[in-house]
C-alpha cells in the first residue's frame, strides 16, 4: 500500500473531523454572525475535501458559490433582520437529539450494504462512467470529462438547472423586489 494513498485517506478523515467540529459549533453558538461565518468555513472545508476526493470542478464551484455567494446572501439577510438567536428550550434539544440518533442508527445500518470506500469494483464504477472515460475524448474532444458530461451528455440537466435558478431569481424578486417594498411600505405606514 503506497504512502500517498495513506496520506490522502488520513487527510480525508481529518478534514471530516474538522467539519464535524465546525458543525457542532454552528449548532451551539447563538450569535448569528458567527454562525454564518462558521457555515462559510464549513463549505470551504467541504471544498478542500472535494480536492482530496479528486472532484476539482466541484471544489471550485463549492468554494465560489457555496462558500462565497451564500455567505454574502446570509450576511445581507442578517443586515435586514437581527443577529441574535433566542435560547432553544431543553425539551426541544432532547427531542431533536433523539430523532437524529434514530436516523443516524438507521443510516449506519444501511451503510453495511455499501461497498468499502475507494473500492474500484463498487457497482457505481461499472456502468456509464467507463464509457464517458473511454469515449468522451473521441466524441466530444475535451480532456476534462466532467465538462464533457455536464455540457454535452447531460446538457438537458444543465438546462434544467438554469430554469431552476431563473425560477428562484423570479421568486426572490417578487418577494423582496422594489415594487413590493414600496407597496408594503405604504401599507405598513397606514396600517400601523
Amino acid at each position, binding site marked *: 500500500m503506497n504512502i500517498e494513498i495513506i496520506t490522502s485517506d488520513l487527510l480525508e478523515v481529518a478534514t*471530516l473531523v474538522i467539519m464535524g467540529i465546525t458543525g457542532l459549533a454552528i449548532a451551539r453558538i447563538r450569535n448569528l454572525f458567527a454562525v454564518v461565518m462558521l457555515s462559510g468555513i464549513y463549505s470551504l472545508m467541504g471544498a478542500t475535501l472535494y480536492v482530496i476526493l479528486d472532484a476539482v470542478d466541484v471544489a471550485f464551484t463549492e468554494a465560489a458559490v457555496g462558500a462565497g455567494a451564500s455567505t454574502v446572501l*446570509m450576511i445581507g439577510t442578517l443586515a435586514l433582520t437581527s443577529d441574535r438567536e433566542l435560547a432553544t428550550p431543553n425539551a426541544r434539544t432532547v427531542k431533536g*437529539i433523539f430523532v437524529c*440518533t434514530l436516523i443516524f442508527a438507521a443510516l449506519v445500518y444501511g451503510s453495511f450494504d455499501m461497498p468499502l470506500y475507494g473500492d474500484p469494483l463498487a457497482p457505481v464504477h461499472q456502468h456509464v462512467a467507463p464509457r464517458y472515460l473511454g469515449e468522451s475524448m473521441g466524441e466530444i474532444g475535451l480532456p476534462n470529462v466532467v465538462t464533457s458530461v455536464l455540457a454535452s451528455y447531460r446538457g438537458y440537466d444543465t438546462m434544467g438547472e438554469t430554469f431552476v435558478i431563473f425560477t428562484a431569481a423570479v421568486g426572490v424578486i417578487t418577494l423582496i423586489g422594489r415594487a413590493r417594498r414600496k407597496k408594503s411600505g405604504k401599507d405598513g405606514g397606514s396600517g400601523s
Partner: protein
Amino acid sequence: MIEYAFPGLLNYWIVFLLMMIGLYIVIAHENLIKKIVGLNVFQVSVFVFYISMAKIKGGTAPILADGIEVYSNPLPHVLILTAIVVGVATTALGLALVVRIQESFGTIEDDEVREKEEQDK
C-alpha cells in the same frame, strides 16, 4: 480486500454524523436563519457523501492525460455540480422569505411568528 480496510465505512459514518448535525439544527432551532444554515450543513454533507462514493483509491481527477490509468468516477461530480448551484438558489429564496417574515411579524423566531399568527386570528 485489506487495502480498503481503512477508512472502510468509517468516513461514511462521519458523514452521517455531519448530516445529523445539520438535521438537528433544522428541527431543534426556532431561528429561521439558523434553520437555513442547518439546511446548508445538511446539503454539504450529502454532497460529500456522494463525492466520496465516486472516489477510487489511487485514482486521480477525471481529466484525461497520458500515462494515467485510473480516474475517479466523473458522473457523481456532474450531479453534485448541478446540486450546489440549485442549493444556492433555494437558499436565496429561503432568505428572501425570512426577510419578508421579518417585515410582516417583526421577528424571525418560528415560535414567536406562530404565536403572533394565533393572536391575529
